[in-house]
């Protein structure tokens, strides 16, 4: 695909992939892990509270973690686009990548849904969490688990990126 080849040949993509700079591939990959920690980590913690862990904690204040989760999201969207651009011709045609995108999209949409429909209810903490809320929390946990596994398996399944002798196939 010409677009993917063009993307991969951009000077920035080449530098990330072949520049052998600490600030290229290694740093971007670390930021992708850090973003995972904040976005998936805090989302998982919130899901567990919805499912009844530490049920004496009020739920509404958890809304305050959203800005940090969105920072995690944007760090990962940016670093993810850069990592994809660096290896566009292999990663973008790898089915595992699209499985990861599917899981991630659903997990992020669930965060939106929880925020819009769930946290906006001022009586949230004075009543039992509806079954729907628990179902969303379970689905969210499933999606983050799926996204993480698919993300890792991109290095093993389908067309694997990375030039011979280069370290960017991790």
């Amino acid at each position, binding site marked *: 695909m010409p677009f993917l080849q063009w993307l991969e040949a951009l000077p920035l993509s080449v530098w990330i992939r072949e520049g052998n700079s600490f600030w290229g591939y290694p740093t971007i990959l670390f930021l992708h892990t850090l973003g995972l920690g904040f976005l998936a980590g805090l989302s998982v*913690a919130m899901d567990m509270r919805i499912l009844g862990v530490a049920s004496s904690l*009020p739920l509404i204040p958890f809304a305050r973690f959203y800005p940090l989760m969105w920072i995690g999201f944007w760090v990962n969207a940016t670093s993810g686009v850069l990592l994809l651009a660096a290896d566009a011709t292999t990663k973008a045609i790898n089915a595992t990548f699209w499985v990861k995108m599917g899981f991630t999209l659903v997990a992020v949409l669930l965060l939106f849904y929880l925020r819009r429909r769930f946290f906006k209810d001022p009586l949230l903490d004075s009543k039992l969490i509806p079954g729907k809320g628990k179902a969303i929390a379970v689905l969210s946990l499933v999606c983050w688990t799926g996204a993480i596994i698919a993300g890792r398996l991109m290095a093993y399944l389908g067309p694997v990126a990375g030039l011979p002798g280069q370290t960017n196939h991790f």
Partner: protein
Amino acid sequence: MYSFLEQFSHWLKFTDLHRFIVSNAWVVPASQSFHFIGLALMFGMVGLLDLRMLGVAKHLPIGPINKVTPIYGLIGFSINLITGFLLYAGDPVQYFNNVAYRWKMLFILLAGLNLFAFWVTGTSKAVDSIGADQEAPPLAKVMAGASLFLWIGVMFWGRMLPFIGSAF
């Protein structure tokens, strides 16, 4: 200690466990996947407690968080201890000689000492009674900041394993 770990790493190479890992191509990808799942669980729970102590989501009382974070944090840590050991056993001498790996272990040790200090100095007990909208004491904030810094450092050194060292 150094030579014991070196000998242990060389010994690991000749164990059935090592043979099992290198002859089954799925073990390393599976271990790595669960290592990241353990990371998300542990960092999420530890982050919840540390961030609250630092003043995020102040409407949350700290006591109930401090009760569950050690449990689920330990579950995440155990997942990573087991999967981490499997990864180590798959290529023990490489990890033993990997500078990034040594830094990672040092940061885990320091994070453990920080947690130990959190308990023995009575800080953990003190924050248990910090209710909604109350500030955590300064020492608790210092320890929360140190914890976040150290665990992010652990992630950093883990990610640097193939780049500064030669893992995977």
